[in-house]
């Protein structure tokens, strides 16, 4: 998935595409990430599913912004379609707004590929 270079080029540390069951579909990082991607994907899928279920409980279709801010690393989740999610891990040098714009573009591109 060359597309994710769209994200790494703006300073995202790591981009992962997972399915809602927690399987990693694709992963790309800047070479300086050393965390356990397999476990991360499982937790991320669980986290996303839990937030999704909470949204339904309060009568929302979904929460469109799903984001955790840390001191050095932040995590941004977005839904590509019913089956797959895009997760970006980024530092303070990337603004959330810019990242959201970029992920929207990338999601459209992934949907095109997925639809084939």
């Amino acid at each position, binding site marked *: 998935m060359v597309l994710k270079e769209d994200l790494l080029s703006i300073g995202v540390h790591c981009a992962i595409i997972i*399915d*809602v*069951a*927690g*399987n*990693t*579909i694709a992963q790309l990082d800047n070479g300086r990430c050393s965390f*356990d991607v*397999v*476990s991360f994907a*499982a*937790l991320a*899928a*669980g986290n996303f*599913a*839990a937030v999704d*279920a909470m949204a339904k409980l309060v009568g929302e279709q979904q929460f469109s912004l799903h984001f955790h801010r840390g001191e050095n690393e932040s995590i941004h989740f977005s839904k590509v379609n019913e089956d797959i999610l895009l997760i970006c891990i980024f530092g303070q040098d990337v603004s959330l707004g810019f990242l959201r714009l970029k992920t929207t573009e990338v999601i459209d591109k992934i949907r095109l590929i997925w639809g084939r």
Partner: protein
Amino acid sequence: MGFINVKKKEVQIKIVYYGPGRGGKTTNLDYINKKYKQRIKTEMVSIKTHGDRTLFFDFLPVDIGKIHGFDIKIQLYTVPGQVKYNATRKLVLKGVDGIVFVADLQKERRDSNLKSLEQMKENLLSHNKDAFKIPLVLQYNKIDLQNQGIPLLTVEEMEQDLNQELRVPYFVGSALAGDNVVETLKKIISMTLISFRKELQ
């Protein structure tokens, strides 16, 4: 169905340990983690309460080697067993490929086994899966308690309660001592891979 990555020549399979609370699901994973420490590259992930009860799930990835050039990666999950956590159980069952139902041999847990199995069938239906079709293995756990004089159900009673209609393989085991834990795992992996192959053909 599991996930196949053709580019990386990799197959990912999700196996869920299901069953009533305090039945030994997490203990099964703990034992597997200890036993195959060298082959499991990562730490087991557990989301649990302060009282050491599973809150969301436990997660343990295991690589079992190659089949036809494809790396087989098994992902083991447990669900929280406590009755109130059904919403989370449903979430964990999403995309499941094979299930181990860990039932409790103790006489007083007979009802919880039955209820948990019934609820599992319903939960599977909500994901359009059928308990009669998905690879499923039963484990009658806690046989070690018989030495402590705790009243246990007999295997016949367990079979009648839980396996009369399902007719799936079962193991009498002890997750704590490790009896039949590995056998259960091997059985569910081979059943899942066989059903996987059938689906692909």
